[in-house]
């Protein structure tokens, strides 16, 4: 399969990972709904960030081992034709599922927080359009816009984390882990399920202009997202205390608390807008990855004509799958462990088989 002449930089890879991970945190934060006690939230975020490293490492290793090949391609060269294609197809469906989650989350957030009278379909269609429009322009464009939006989102994120200090009560953080470690399992799983979405960089790595940058910059991405999510969890808890758990759009509610000098207030719409922009980038990345994946499975020459049809598929799925916010969140929480398990086992399988076969083919290799 010939690669189109597109290249992205390490910093752009970092921004793509950052945005993919921040989007499910920044407005709809399903991990919040998963924790039993809000005080445990930051612990969960910390553990999730640390445990994401072993998911990411084999992925990067495979990317380095098969330069110029996407995960869909090297799963075929590792597992053989048919099993590899099955793995690829599973991944494509997984990415489309993420895309569906993202567009529903956008529509959900807007209908809950800003414009309750507008039908959710409007937001779903328009966000799918934004994602598909960007995906249609290729990875280079997605990478470039994501780097700019990363800066924007990071700035807005810092504002949201720092500025609500007036309403913060530090003693809200206590008691931590009141009921021991067991209740942490489920939320950590949810948090990790989001980190598992990093499997999409298996499609991005071959487009890096310097493949060695991949390791370094994905490390930065993990570090930055981890720190920001932990900070965000802490702020959420100190501001809202135990009630944080019941918020449907936590970051939005957090932004509502901002009130500085009787002037700088009501910036929640800005938060929402910057989050939606990054959601569109994530959507673009997922649509791009799944269309490219489909092409590489079925050997179609060009993936661009697939982007808009896939966008339509996500619109239909997003509209039909969920009825309301509660259903969306609970469905997500129930599916998260399976998604996590699937990604971990797929990566593990590819990694181990590559290790075995690689050793068989070139003694002392790897």
């Amino acid at each position, binding site marked *: 399969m010939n690669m189109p002449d597109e290249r992205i930089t390490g910093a752009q890879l970092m921004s793509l990972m950052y945005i993919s991970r921040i989007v499910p945190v920044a407005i709809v934060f399903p991990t919040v709904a998963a924790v039993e006690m809000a005080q445990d939230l930051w612990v969960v975020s910390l553990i999730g960030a640390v445990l994401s490293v072993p998911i990411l490492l084999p992925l990067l290793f495979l990317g380095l081992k098969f330069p110029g090949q996407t995960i869909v391609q090297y799963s075929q060269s590792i597992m053989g034709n048919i099993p590899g294609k099955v793995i690829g197809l599973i991944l494509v469906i997984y990415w489309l599922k993420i895309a569906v989650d993202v567009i529903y989350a956008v529509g959900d957030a807007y209908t809950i927080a800003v414009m309750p009278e507008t039908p959710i379909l409007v937001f779903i269609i328009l966000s799918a359009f934004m994602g598909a429009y960007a995906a249609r*322009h290729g990875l280079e464009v997605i990478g470039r*816009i994501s780097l700019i939006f990363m800066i924007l989102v990071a700035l807005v994120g810092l504002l949201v984390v720092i500025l609500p200090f007036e309403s913060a009560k530090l003693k809200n953080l206590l008691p931590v882990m009141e009921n021991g470690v067991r209740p942490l399992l489920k939320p950590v799983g949810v948090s990790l399920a989001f980190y598992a979405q990093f499997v999409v960089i298996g499609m991005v790595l071959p487009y890096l202009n310097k493949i060695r940058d991949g390791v370094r910059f994905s490390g930065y991405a993990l570090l930055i997202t981890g720190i920001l999510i932990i900070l965000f969890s802490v702020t959420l808890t100190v501001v809202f205390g135990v009630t944080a758990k019941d918020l449907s759009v936590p970051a939005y509610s957090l932004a509502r608390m901002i009130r500085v000098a009787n002037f700088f207030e*009501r910036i929640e719409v800005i938060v929402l807008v910057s989050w939606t922009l990054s959601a569109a980038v994530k959507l673009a990345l997922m649509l791009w990855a799944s269309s490219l994946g489909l092409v590489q499975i079925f050997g179609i020459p060009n993936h661009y004509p697939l982007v808009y049809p896939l966008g339509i598929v996500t619109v239909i799925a997003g509209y039909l799958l969920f009825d309301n916010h509660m259903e969306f969140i609970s469905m997500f929480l129930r599916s998260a462990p399976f998604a996590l398990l699937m990604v971990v086992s797929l990566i593990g399988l590819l990694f181990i088989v590559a290790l075995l076969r690689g050793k068989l083919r070139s003694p002392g290799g790897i």
Partner: protein
Amino acid sequence: MLNENEKLIRDSLGNSIDLSIRRLRVGESAEYELLIVHLQGLVDDWLVSNSIIQKATELSRKISSSGEIFQLLHDNLLAVSGLEVVAKADEFVARISEGYCGILVNGVADGLICSVSGGERRSIEDPISEPVVRGPREGFTESVQVNISLLRRRIKDPNLWFEKRVVGTISKTEVVVAYISGTANEKIVQEVRDRLKRIDIDFIQESGQVEELIEDSPLSIFPSIFRTERADRAAQALADGRVAILTDGSPFVLVVPTGLSMFLSSVEDSYERFYFGSFFRLLRILSFFISLTLPSFYVAILTFHHEMLPTELLFSIAAQREGVPFPAIVEAIMMELVFEVLREAGLRLPRMIGPAVSIVGGLVLGEAAIRAGLVSPAMVMVVALTAVASFATPAFNIAIAARLLRFPLILLAASLGMFGIMVGMFTLFVKLVAQRSFGVPYLAPFAPLVLAEWKDSVVRAPLWTLNRRSSLVAKRNNLVRQEPANKPLPPDSINGQSDES
């Protein structure tokens, strides 16, 4: 034979009244005939009479053959700088209509073509579309020769090269590609040549028409070719490694490759001290965004997001809007349209009436509209601020892009609030990121992010820190403008002693 040629020339040029054919007899006994052909008004009459006709009449000695006359004329007699020999009749006629003077000798098949271009030209004046407070006042003129000389006077490097190409089957317009060899990226120069070669049209008379035929994104609302009327701007662009395209008959010179940041900068940024330059650049970026989005934000906030305004302001705006019969979007579109009409009207009027239109239109109409309760004062303020902000954009064509995009953004804002504006801006942003100008990304220092180049695009860093040319534009292995550490130092140590001693 000469008679046949004369008839041929007269027939080809339709015996036009500006065709001047002078028949001369030369030689000891005037036995040889010459034909001197040119079009009046295109040539320098003084040159034709003194350097050609007078010289030819000096041929009164003994001459053996007509070939010798031709040789004598060609080798030493004609006092013109450009001289060439053409063999074909249609080429001869074509050169005559381009403004050359042609000479035919009876009995010789070839014709001589002398360059004696002249005629009336506009003198070099202030560039009226790009005025500056501080800086050179030379603007390009309609003559490509004058424009070339303007550039050559500013860049005395022998590596400044000009390449000519003729475009337009009827107009035969001279289009000149200028670049500094060794500084400009060869790939871009070659791309310019290729695209000019592809032009196949009958008539060109403005560089804008050339621009439209060689653009990267012909359908994009944002121009992907920069144009300037200022000689210093074009010279600076050449020194940066860009390529200039001069069109005969147009005072606007095209510059490629370009990017949004170039459209938002002015030459003056580099002439005034860097604090001012930086401040004005930031201000222009801000006002560009204002001119693009302010009315749509206003409409979105009034229609959907009242909570974004402080309560007192919201009350005062609501009180103003009490008697206004229209929703915010109708108000906004109406006022914006009125303003666009006013601007267009003021622009096309003779200079004496222009101000009257802006006074009657702007002041009287705005005031009366508020009194009549058609629009709210806040909306008038928003529209006026938008207009002023769009005037702060130095390049006219990019300001028009913002003006046009305002309307779809207002519609989106009125239907979907902030979400609508965001959809519009996101789509626009993707489009701009994907756009290229001769291979160089349009939003270059922002997306792709090249932080090193922010110091001469977002701000204007001190000149002694701008050590390198833009690697996106200039040739990669020749980027050094100056050695680092060029910062001027106070001359404390001139005499090897400090002030205190």
